């Protein structure tokens, strides 16, 4: 007995050490990235100043104009639009799979959604550029713009929303279901008044996860959003998101131009951090 106990304590120690170093590495990488972004963007922040990044006449880094605000707005608008489209559809598909579909269909349906999650983003982008954009262009030229970006992103984050919502619904304790059935609640009442409220923290967690992905997505949005730096006035206006800005210009950027692209990266990172903080607060309130 003693021996196995002693061994276990080593195992515990080793495990603790391994887990701790993994955690330290995870946090350390995040800090290093933040430091790196700060260091690379520091020359631009110092020489140009924060104010000009929101007040300049436009984004023409080679002509000394560095306004990032339209891209920040565009990034938020595209992500928000994608969530508004993918959120309801994702939750609806999870409800369908859990409560309405026959087991056979539900299983293959779920597998298809999971498959959708595995499609690389550049394939979505290519499809968007060659199929979706021309369709929108027939109706509202030039086609590439805010709406195309939202739709492509919505397709991409749909599986995240659907699968997390599905898991959250499944995790609702059985006695809720039995209790509701005993009270004779209708199926719709059961779903909307019992199951979804009980699963809401999981569902919202999934939506926030999807939002973070939408904010960070580059290639697909770059290919369909038009990439013109402007604050959109309509759903069909072309817009450029922060990630696309970096991908488009980094390859050929030098000195100050390069530093301002790191400022774009920093802005995006702060946006995601703010979102995560908000998620933490929201999650805390929901659980409490």
């Amino acid at each position, binding site marked *: 007995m003693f021996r196995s106990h002693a061994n276990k304590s080593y195992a515990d120690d080793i495990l603790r050490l391994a887990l701790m170093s993994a955690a330290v590495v995870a946090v350390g990488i995040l800090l290093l990235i933040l430091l790196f972004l700060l260091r690379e963007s520091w020359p631009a922040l110092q020489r140009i100043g924060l104010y000009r990044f929101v007040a300049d006449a436009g984004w023409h880094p*080679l002509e000394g104009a560095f306004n990032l605000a339209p891209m920040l707005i565009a990034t938020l608008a595209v992500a928000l639009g994608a969530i508004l489209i993918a959120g309801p559809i994702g939750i609806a598909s999870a409800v369908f799979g859990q409560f309405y579909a026959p087991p056979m269909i539900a299983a293959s349906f779920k597998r298809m959604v999971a498959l959708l999650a595995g499609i690389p983003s550049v394939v979505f982008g290519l499809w968007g550029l060659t199929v979706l954009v021309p369709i929108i262009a027939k109706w509202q030229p030039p086609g590439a713009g805010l709406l195309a970006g939202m739709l492509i992103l919505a397709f991409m984050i749909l599986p995240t929303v659907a699968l997390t919502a599905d898991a959250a619904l499944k995790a609702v304790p059985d006695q809720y279901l039995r209790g509701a059935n005993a009270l004779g609640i209708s199926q719709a009442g059961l779903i909307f008044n019992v199951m979804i409220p009980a699963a809401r923290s999981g569902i919202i967690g999934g939506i926030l996860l999807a939002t973070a992905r939408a904010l960070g997505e580059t290639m697909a949005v770059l290919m369909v959003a038009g990439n013109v730096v402007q604050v959109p006035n309509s759903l069909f206006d072309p817009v450029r998101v922060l990630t696309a800005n970096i991908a488009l210009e980094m390859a050929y950027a030098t000195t100050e131009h390069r530093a301002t692209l790191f400022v774009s990266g920093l802005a995006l990172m702060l946006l995601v951090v703010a979102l995560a903080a908000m998620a933490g607060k929201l999650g805390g309130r929901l659980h409490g």
Partner: protein
Amino acid sequence: MQIDCKFSYPASSNIRTVYLKEVTVKFIALLKKVNVLLSAFAILFQINAVQAADKLVITGSSTIAPLAAEIGKRFEKLNPDVRVDVQTGGSSRGVSDARSGLADIGMASRALKAEENDLKSFTIALDGVGLILHKDNPVKTLSDQQVIDIYTGKITNWKQVGGKDVRITVVNKAEGRSTLELFLHYYKLKNSDIKPQVVIGDNQQGIKTVAGNPGAIGYVSIGTAEFDAGNGVPIKLLPLNGVVASVENVRNGSFPLSRLLNLVTKTAPQGLAKRFIAFASSKNVDDIVEAQYFVPLSRK
């Protein structure tokens, strides 16, 4: 429950110490091995450093730099004792570095100016940019002024230049691209004058955007556009001032929206620099030139 145990230790109260000792000993042995390995590496690198004494520094145009870097890689492979160091900073830096001797070879994506005639320049490839429209667009030609008016947003519908009643979609390149630079230079525009509806990164994205939109106009490297148009992609290249936009016309110098990619040296090149320039303008690098959508030289 002992079956799972992979190691056995003496059943004493200081199992831990014994175990730790064992680990420490093993760790020190490992460190020694790593140390031996490291010193072996160090010797290797020293040999390498001695061998790489032949270093070629090339600076200048950011258009040529990726091409020079690829050519440099192949040159290094053929001459293992040579290192080619390529740095960017614009054509003017290339010329001034070549003159001051900071670089062995400068890169300039233009012909030498009159006051730079004391230097020697060697063309290694050409760069041509062509305007592309959708194949179904009936417009056959545009004057320089019409192109400028379309790109600055003064003309917004194809019927204003003899086409159908379709809104024009202006496709522009992202800042910093060499095709953009050449386009702006030819039409004497600033990038902030241009009112685009779509901004693109590489040539393929430009071609796909125009191919999917009958009202679009864009400009891309001629090599890519000619290849794709010949392979069924629904785009067409516009002639410029009556000159057909083709790789052939870029090569013979008659197509106006084109430029030379030059290597520049202070005096007639000697030794390593001479060998590199000869290699960079030889047939051996034509595939690299084409892979980067530039036009190889014509050779007899």
